[in-house]
């Protein structure tokens, strides 16, 4: 019964279960009202306790990884970067700023120039003191045209960077109200001397320093004694084990070998949650599973055909069957409520075979099967999702033909090359970045070949707008354009699903990226 109560209390706290429902169901289990109510309160050990070794079992790491934050693409390098290093700012789950190596930030009136005040008294793991010059050099390394940094796209809108005493000043090419958000990109970890000398040294200012590095196997960290922020870094040590096999990961969590696992498959999440001593946490993220059409290639250059396909997909069914309920329906825009300034009033598009048939007829398509190219490399369950799509479209009289592609080379041969395929987007910190990366006419990854001058103009206008109300209206207009005219069919946003053992305290719902946006080692503690 304890287990059941815990689960109910957890659901109530996560908002999946109303307080009243919780009390009723707890009473059904034989609990008095006061006892049930106390379960909802914060646990007694809300005060962080120091000590212990946190072990994490993480999927998404390879023997080919390095500690260079510029090269961090998959999950494990993300977590190592976030554990040994820090960025200028972090973003809280509610969209507000958490100032890390910058103490504050001030924009100029037109949002073109931004001044970051660099924190004093911060020490790198090699004993050096953080200087504004380290910040400047780091940003230079990531914005150099010869870099392989994943943050290059973020840095491209920057015209100039300079120092002024304790201030690090960034000049943008065009007004950009989102600049501080961009500085939270996890590649932009501040390294001594910018990391030019030894980018993969693993030296940062984070709460833990690296003590052992075996790519694809394990990473060891120990608490950094001179860390500047006392409210973080409660464990004596952190060990990250790379466990790419999901069954092995879950078994390690169940047997207590690790305390936290990432990438719990939705299909087994409910089963795993029933195991004793642990719970499964899920939080809506920004990643979305999509089907993309090239708006400039026949037959997808016809707006009616695009609308027909958008009406012919059953979003609820996909969330239920492909994500086992661990996700939310999409609305044919790459943005959801996890983003700041999201307009929730845009009507939700639903499966409507009649409307689909109507648009299909209006498009004048010759009735030949429409080829959809998929591989499970696009997203887990992509082939199954395509089959569901095929069936729901067939009900509207639209013939889809599924062409299975090899996983190998899917991103280089199919995605962004073929006119209609399955894909995945991981989401970005802010709307502007998501749209600039994939919907701006001249974007490299304009994978729907969406060319619309009005849209481009709105995007630039919204970027420079410091008034949030006006900005929200602009984003709403853009969302409606992409939703009705674009080549994106977005059936679902996937949740981040993770398994956490009960002794881990201080867990927070954070949908920016997985495992509390990589901050679990520095913010959690053991009961």
């Amino acid at each position, binding site marked *: 019964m304890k287990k059941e109560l815990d689960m109910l209390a957890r659901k109530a706290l996560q908002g999946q279960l109303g307080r009243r429902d919780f009390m009723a169901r707890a009473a059904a289990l034989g609990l008095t009202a006061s006892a049930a109510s106390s379960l909802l309160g914060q646990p007694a050990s809300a005060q962080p306790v120091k000590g212990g070794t946190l072990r994490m079992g993480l999927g998404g790491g390879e023997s*080919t990884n390095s500690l260079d934050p510029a090269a961090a693409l998959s999950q494990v390098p993300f977590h190592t970067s976030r554990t040994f290093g820090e960025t200028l700012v972090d973003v809280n789950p509610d969209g507000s700023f958490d100032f890390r190596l910058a103490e504050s930030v001030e924009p100029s009136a037109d949002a073109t120039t931004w001044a970051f005040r660099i924190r004093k008294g911060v020490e790198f793991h090699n004993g050096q003191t953080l200087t504004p010059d380290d910040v400047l050099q780091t940003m230079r390394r990531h914005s150099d*045209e010869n870099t392989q940094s994943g943050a290059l796209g973020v840095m491209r809108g920057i015209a100039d960077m300079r120092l002024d005493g304790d201030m690090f000043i960034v000049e943008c090419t065009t007004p950009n109200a989102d600049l501080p958000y961009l500085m939270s990109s996890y590649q932009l970890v501040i390294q001594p001397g910018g990391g030019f000398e030894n980018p993969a040294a693993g030296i940062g200012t984070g709460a833990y320093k690296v003590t052992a590095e075996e790519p694809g196997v394990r990473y060891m960290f120990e608490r950094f004694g001179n860390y500047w922020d006392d409210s973080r870094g409660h464990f004596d040590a952190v060990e990250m084990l790379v466990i790419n096999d999901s069954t*092995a990961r879950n078994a*390690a969590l169940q047997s207590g070998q690790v305390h936290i696992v990432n990438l719990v498959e939705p299909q087994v999440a409910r089963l795993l949650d029933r195991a004793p001593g642990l719970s499964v946490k899920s939080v809506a993220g920004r990643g979305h599973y999509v089907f993309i059409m090239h708006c400039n290639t026949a037959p997808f250059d016809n707006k009616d055909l695009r609308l027909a396909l958008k009406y012919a997909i059953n979003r609820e069914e996909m969330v239920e069957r492909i994500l086992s309920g661990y996700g939310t329906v999409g609305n044919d825009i790459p943005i959801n409520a996890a983003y700041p300034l999201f307009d929730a009033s845009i009507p939700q598009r639903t499966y409507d075979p009649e409307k689909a048939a109507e648009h299909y007829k209006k498009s004048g398509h010759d009735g030949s099967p429409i080829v959809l190219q998929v591989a499970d490399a696009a997203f887990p369950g992509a082939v199954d999702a395509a089959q569901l799509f095929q069936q729901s479209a067939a009900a509207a009289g639209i013939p889809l033909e599924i062409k299975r592609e090899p996983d190998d*080379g899917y991103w*280089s041969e199919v995605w962004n090359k073929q006119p209609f395929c399955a894909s995945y987007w991981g989401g970005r910190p802010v709307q502007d970045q998501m749209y600039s990366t994939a919907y701006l006419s001249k974007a*490299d990854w304009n994978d729907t070949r969406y060319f619309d001058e009005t849209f481009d103009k709105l995007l630039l206008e919204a970027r420079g707008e410091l008034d949030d109300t006006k900005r929200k209206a602009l984003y709403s207009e853009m969302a409606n354009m992409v939703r009705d005219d674009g080549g994106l069919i977005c059936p679902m946003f996937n949740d981040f699903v993770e398994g956490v053992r009960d002794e881990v305290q201080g867990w927070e719902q954070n949908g920016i990226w997985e495992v509390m946006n990589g901050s679990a080692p520095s913010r959690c503690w053991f009961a």
Partner: protein
Amino acid sequence: MNRIILRILAQRIALSLLLLLLVSVLIFAGTQILPGDVAASILGQSATPEALANLREELGLNAPAWQRYFDWLGGLLQGDLGRSLTNGRDIGEAIGQRLSNTLFLATTAAVIAVPLAIFLGLVSVLYRDRWPDKLISALSLAAVSVPEFLIGYILMFWVGVQLGWAPSVAILNDTMTFWERLHAITLPVAVLTMVVLAHMMRMTRAAILNVMQSPYIETAELKGLGTFAVIWRHALPNAISPVVNVVMLNLAYLVVGVVVVEVVFVYPGMGQFLVDHVSKRDVPVVQACGLIFASVYILLNMVADIVSILANPRLRHPK
């Protein structure tokens, strides 16, 4: 040792070396025709065209294939395996650790599996067609018929999670003592033992039964030796050649064929290492791994042949 044997051995070794050279050509050619672009595979979906061009230049992917082959071969002969394309580490160093882990797992499994298989084979012969023989055959064949990942998951669930006797994840590290290491690999060793046992046991049984038909066995029996002594002293030495062959094949499997077991138990061995680098198109590492696997295979087969040659009385005592 006589001349004929020496000559046969020299031929056999020379043949192995030639084979190894051919394999190196095959491995190189094979990695060249892998589809997809190395740079694109390394950077994944989020590769920008600039980053791709920069990386391609840096990797020297523009030189002709034959030139890269001879550069590679030359480096190999000097013991230089090159650097990994993806993380810039020295391949020899990285592989060294992984290879010693794989050999540790394989040796432990072999130390348990080989004597056990031969012993069970002998017991089967001793109780031929009676219940111990049938039981041993049934159990070992059942174990070999179930896919190894399934055995792995079953052991992981019962022994690792439910009973908590052994860790379900077999990750080793430098600070572990020898006994801690042995404890960590309990489950993978158990799986590997079950997988290779049946093959060797059945072969031992069949080979000895074959010899048991010979007239000299009858003589041995007639002079009053016990059944086990007959098998141990007269049948086994003459059945050694096929048994050694099968044992060597299985040892080779323990080194090169354990990818699945390594992945399931997250064991930091060669298999997992190879898989990671194939998916990232890290060609120098794939080539090095391929060559090491091929060497192990060729070496063990060579040992098997040499043992057969030495065990063959017609060669040992020429007329």
